[in-house]
């Protein structure tokens, strides 16, 4: 296999140059995605599914361009409410809220949005670049990851619970365990029902998005009710396009975090069934871990926003790799794309790549162009969205709650959605009030069922024999890295303490 097939590159440029139609659908697609991602409760998957019928009248390439624009737009859209009102628009932007919202409250909302957009667009661009270079190999690497390796990936995300303490370490851990436990409600990996108390509504478990919005957003909104505006000081409550631009350009100070986040995103996004919702958590945890000042995370450190946004956006490229190369959807969004492929009687997979490398390259190039256009469309969009800081809390809180309620109804399709949101709003408020770090519970909820399922598969595949682990070199390396990354900060602290002791 050659790294790059230059003949196909030429043909791909030919496909891109023959018609203006595929270009014309990009901007509407980006807007649809941004709007969908930004509305709490409307997931990226949903907005892509809603757009699917429009593509019936398009040719295959135009349809793919349109749907991937929606995908790209939604990838960033979720960050906007996460930063402005602590309400992640999608599960992919949970950790964007951790530092993005504190930045907003400090009056750095313009910068936060600018940095987020920059990290998002550059992350997506890098992921497609990596995909262009490695599409022949990426998919095979992914296939070699078995359940045990996937469990390792998820545990990496779960260790983050320990870092998300809302002032009290032990209670933070307890909140995380609470999340992990309720994440296992529903049909277990071997088919038995658990914790449903006989309610058929709980068969699929706690609906994650409404619960997440309840725990993170509404709880925070109740707290906000005492303030008059999100940004306390009037002189900070400005809408400044130039400061958005400064934020955008300022991302270069965080280029290390950006690169690491993008790589994590490509890798994690490519794993079927994992995707952006896990990638942003792992990247955030990683950024905090290697930081010289981990305590500043969660208090408005721009590195947190960069880590999260670069990883969730670059997951898109990873997920596309799996879709194109294996014909397997990596997540909800690519599952809908697969349905779009099917409507044009195209199935992804090795055969598709081998026979249609020109189309594949054209898709990749088209997506890189989308990233550039997202810069313009995104800047316009956040310039409008940032007006939220001027809205008094009095009007903001009820509007957001109503939107979130409607969104969670639309998402789940029945009253379970709004009910879950209501229950978890109360839980979240209580948790926040007594320092049981609500974000830790969210991380547990997002990853609990996934990691359990992978462990059950590992158990089945190994027949319960622990020596199986030694036959999995990738997992061993991941395990070693995991242990090292947990031990390293502790060791650093210990050494620092000893040194200061000696000096003293």
């Amino acid at each position, binding site marked *: 296999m050659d790294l790059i097939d230059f003949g196909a590159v030429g043909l791909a440029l030919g496909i891109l140059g023959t018609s203006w139609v595929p270009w014309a659908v990009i901007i509407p697609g980006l807007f649809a995605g941004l709007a969908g991602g930004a509305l709490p409760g409307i997931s990226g998957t949903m907005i892509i*599914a809603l757009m*699917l019928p429009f593509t*019936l009248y398009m040719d295959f390439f135009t349809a793919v361009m349109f749907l991937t624009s929606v995908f790209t737009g939604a990838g960033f859209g979720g960050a906007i409410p996460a930063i402005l009102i602590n309400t992640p628009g999608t599960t992919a932007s949970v950790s964007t809220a951790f530092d993005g919202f504190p930045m907003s409250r400090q009056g750095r909302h313009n910068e936060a949005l600018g940095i987020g957009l920059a990290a998002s667009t550059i992350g997506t661009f890098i992921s497609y670049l990596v995909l262009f270079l490695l599409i022949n190999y990426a998919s095979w690497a*992914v*296939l*070699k*990851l*078995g*359940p045990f390796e996937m469990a390792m990936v998820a545990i990496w995300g779960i260790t983050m619970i320990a870092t998300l303490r809302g002032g009290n370490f032990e209670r933070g851990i307890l909140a995380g365990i609470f999340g992990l436990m309720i994440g296992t409600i529903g*049909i277990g*990996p*071997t*088919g038995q029902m658990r914790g449903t108390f006989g309610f*058929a509504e709980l*068969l*699929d478990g706690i609906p994650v998005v409404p619960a997440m919005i309840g725990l993170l957003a509404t709880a925070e909104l109740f707290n906000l009710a005492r303030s008059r505006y999100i940004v306390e000081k009037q002189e900070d409550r400005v809408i400044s396009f130039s400061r958005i631009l400064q934020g955008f350009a300022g991302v270069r100070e965080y280029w290390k975090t950006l690169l690491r986040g993008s790589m994590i995103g490509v890798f994690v996004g490519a794993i*079927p*069934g994992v995707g952006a919702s896990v990638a942003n958590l792992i990247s955030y945890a990683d950024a905090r871990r290697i930081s010289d000042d981990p305590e500043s995370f969660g208090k408005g450190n721009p590195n947190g926003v960069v880590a999260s946004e670069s990883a969730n956006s670059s997951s898109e490229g990873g997920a596309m790799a799996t879709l194109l190369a*294996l*014909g*397997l*959807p990596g997540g*909800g969004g*690519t*599952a*809908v794309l*697969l*349905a779009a492929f*099917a*409507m044009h*009687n195209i*199935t*992804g*997979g*090795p*055969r598709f790549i081998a026979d249609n490398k020109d189309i594949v390259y054209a898709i990749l190039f088209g997506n890189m162009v989308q990233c550039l256009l997202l810069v313009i469309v995104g800047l316009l969009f956040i310039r409008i969205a940032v007006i939220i800081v001027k809205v008094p809390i009095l009007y903001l809180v009820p509007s957001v709650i109503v939107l979130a309620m409607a969104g969670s109804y639309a998402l789940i*399709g029945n009253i379970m959605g709004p009910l879950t949101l209501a229950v978890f709003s109360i839980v979240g408020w209580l948790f926040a009030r007594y320092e049981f770090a609500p974000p830790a519970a969210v991380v547990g909820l997002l990853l609990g069922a996934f990691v359990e*399922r992978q462990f059950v*598969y590992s158990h*089945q*595949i*190994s*027949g319960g*024999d622990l020596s199986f682990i030694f036959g999995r070199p990738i997992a061993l390396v991941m395990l070693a890295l995991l242990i090292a990354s947990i031990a390293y900060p502790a060791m650093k602290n210990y050494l620092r303490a000893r040194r200061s002791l000696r000096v003293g």
Partner: protein
Amino acid sequence: MNSWKSLKGAVLTLGLALGGQAAYAQDDYPNKPIEITAPYDAGGATDRMVRHLAPFLAEALGTPVNVVNRPGGGTLTGTVYFHNQPADGYTVMFIPPTPYFVNHIEVMNAPFKLDDFIFVNAQEVAQSLMVVPKESQVQSFDEIIEGLKEPGKLSAAVITGSSEHISLLLMMEKLDIPAENLRLVTYDGGGPTRTAIIGGQVDFGMVPGQGSEVIFDQVNKIMVVADETNPDWPDATPINEALKSYGVEMPILDSSVRSMVVLAKLKEEYPDRYQKFVDAYKSVVESEEYQASAKEGNYGRDWRGPEASTELVKRNYGLLVEYSRLLE
């Protein structure tokens, strides 16, 4: 002035309502869009098939046909939704009823019975296919059986609770091989199962053959649970032929039976609508245009009709109930 306007409005509304009523009595079914409830996530094999079918059906019926995914609870949520809809012919469902209904009805006490539905057409009856990754240590049926006799030697992947799951366990039971000998990984869907097989995570796997075409380049097809060889897969030996030398015989359990479903009440309350829907659907499936397009997309395109299809579903349901003890 204002009251005049509202009076005019009222008259207009009344007129429209009466007009609507008249149309209703005359029954120009279908006069509004029809929903096909799809009780699973978008993107799977059944979903792709129904999405491909919908525009053809819309043309034949002269009304938009929307596929609406209502996933959850292993198709339970969507099926309950469909069961609660009025039996007026404006909501139909497309689903592989087995094995899901067995669990819903026998275990979960679902609020519906098999007899509440008419299976209009089992448009695709998938066959369970045994496949091995190309680099697997076992490459033939006999090697697999030999391997199974050694405790813990082989691992395999199936979709949990599926026909393949039951067929595999039943075959081992008939061969007097303890189930513990096999390290069986029970995935929660076709996607992860196929990924595990082509990734070489397991030594072999059993999948619904129709709908798994995407992995065919990377596996060898060993055996098919069917009475005869499938001409598309000449390498796969029919199960009872493969088992002949072992002196055992297996009942043939079909894999996914992808079927269009209407409520039984529709036929009682609106026999004309029922007939109209069945006829339109039949004309689509039998049309040259649909046949050609479905062939290209690798979609099942059989017309079995309501009687044969309902019987087929009931037969498989009965077999699954009979052997569900194997899953415990």
